[in-house]
């Protein structure tokens, strides 16, 4: 065979990777590697690159943003919601044929086939047009969101509190960047559950205690440059539609995708809802989704 060193070099990657090499080529390569230091060094380069990338795999891996899974799930749900329409179209078609039956029965065979063809075309155009309209009416998955209703809805409350703080109506009752001090403040002011602060690259500036049907709840505020992150943490057990509530669709998304993200109606504010230990945490911020998600640290499970 006697391949040149340049030709044999092509097989060095396969050798470094333990991939299949034609036995004759492999034998020639092994023999040449013993006598050709340049070829041997070239193999070392291949191995060194492979090993280095392998060792740095963790560091080089780029973690997906937290809202990606939610976006995918929402997109899939849209597809799923669209799917029953195919069955609906069958029903429509069935009605169409049923309606056609007596007409066709009344026609003589000479007229029946052209008449059926014309009616079929009209029916097809009608149904295609309907399908087109449905397709156009599907919102972009990123715009899909739920409606938060009720004064005890934790998302509504988080939005209201964020806007009150932003406009200066609401002031922190306790100003501190120390989580322990803030927890102590919460406890002293009737918050009976442990607050699990999110791990976030933002500066804690203080907190507020609210009350709903006699129960006290913890709110806290972060700052990132000029931006605000308003957080509201409540025990999941109290989101029971009695004391507090949450939109079931948003909760379904949290249960499936860990996070529910949305953009506030008519504003660029971001809201995120997720489970933080035994609590539910809602955050509202003037940061964009990708900016806010980049600040929160999570350990993938």
């Amino acid at each position, binding site marked *: 065979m006697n391949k040149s060193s340049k030709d044999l070099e092509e097989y060095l990657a396969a050798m470094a*990777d333990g991939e299949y090499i034609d036995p004759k080529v492999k034998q020639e390569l092994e023999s040449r590697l013993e006598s050709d230091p340049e070829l041997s060094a070239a193999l070392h*380069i291949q191995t*060194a690159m492979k090993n*280095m990338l392998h060792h740095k795999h963790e560091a080089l891996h780029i973690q997906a943003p937290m809202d990606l899974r939610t976006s995918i799930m929402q997109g899939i749900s849209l597809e799923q919601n669209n799917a029953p329409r195919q069955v609906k179209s069958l029903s429509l078609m069935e009605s169409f044929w049923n309606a056609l039956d007596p007409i066709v029965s009344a026609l003589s065979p000479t007229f029946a*086939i052209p008449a059926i063809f014309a009616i079929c075309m009209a029916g097809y155009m009608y149904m295609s047009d309907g399908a087109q309209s449905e397709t156009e009416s599907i919102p972009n998955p990123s715009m899909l969101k739920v409606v938060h209703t009720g004064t005890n809805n934790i998302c509504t409350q988080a939005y209201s509190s964020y806007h009150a703080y932003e406009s200066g109506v609401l002031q922190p009752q306790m100003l501190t960047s120390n989580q322990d001090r803030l927890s102590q403040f919460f406890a002293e002011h009737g918050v009976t559950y442990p607050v699990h602060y999110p791990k976030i690259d933002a500066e804690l500036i203080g907190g507020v205690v609210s009350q709903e049907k006699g129960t006290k709840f913890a709110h806290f505020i972060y700052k990132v440059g000029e931006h605000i992150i308003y957080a509201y943490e409540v025990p999941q057990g109290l989101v029971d539609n009695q004391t507090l509530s949450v939109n079931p669709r948003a909760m379904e998304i949290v249960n499936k995708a860990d996070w529910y993200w949305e953009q506030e109606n008519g504003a660029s504010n971001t809201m995120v809802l997720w489970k933080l230990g035994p609590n539910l945490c809602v955050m509202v911020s003037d940061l964009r989704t990708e900016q806010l998600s980049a600040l929160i640290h999570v350990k993938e499970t």
Partner: protein
Amino acid sequence: MNDLTILSGESFVEAQKFDNFGLYPSATIKAPMNTIAAKQSDFEREALPHMNALYSFAVRLCRNREDAHDLVQETFMKGFRFFDKFERGTNCKAWLFRILKNTYINQYRKDKREPDIVEYDVIEEFYDLIRSDSSESTDLQKKIFDNLLDDEVSIALESLPETFRTTIILCDLEGMTYEEIAEIIECPIGTVRSRLHRARKMLASQLLVYAKQRGYDTKDFE
């Protein structure tokens, strides 16, 4: 008979059509009902665990996170739409990577005619310089490469032309076999082998530039 029967407890709607008119042969149309939910469940279980790997790959392809986010989302939507065509038990990860790669080429590549022009002669010259006849230099190479900063390696990877970048990432970061890579990039295994070999040479050349800039003495390679 124009009846449409929903079979209770079954996953199918059976509808026999057109018999009365003789325009079409008798046909049974089977439309999935419960299968839609089952499809979503299967898809979530089989496909979603690969989301992080796909995103990491997408960022390196697009070189920006916004496009990568959209690209991965689009990939999963396409995957879901065509999940019926995916043969269960085969390599779902490779299948998704292939969808992602094709979606990238069709929709996201900024310059669709981006040529893989490499100043290959220059790299070859440099590579000739770093090859050494001394086995001691192997340890030095290891030391140099292992001590490079993650960012330097990341930048060097992203500086590789697309076809080479894709191959080395799939092999050395995603741990795929040549056969899987060949399936994803739709080329013969020999091409994978050749591209990988060249990609690692280019990466080594680029990294030695960084090593020199950081003060490593690479004289032994020259």
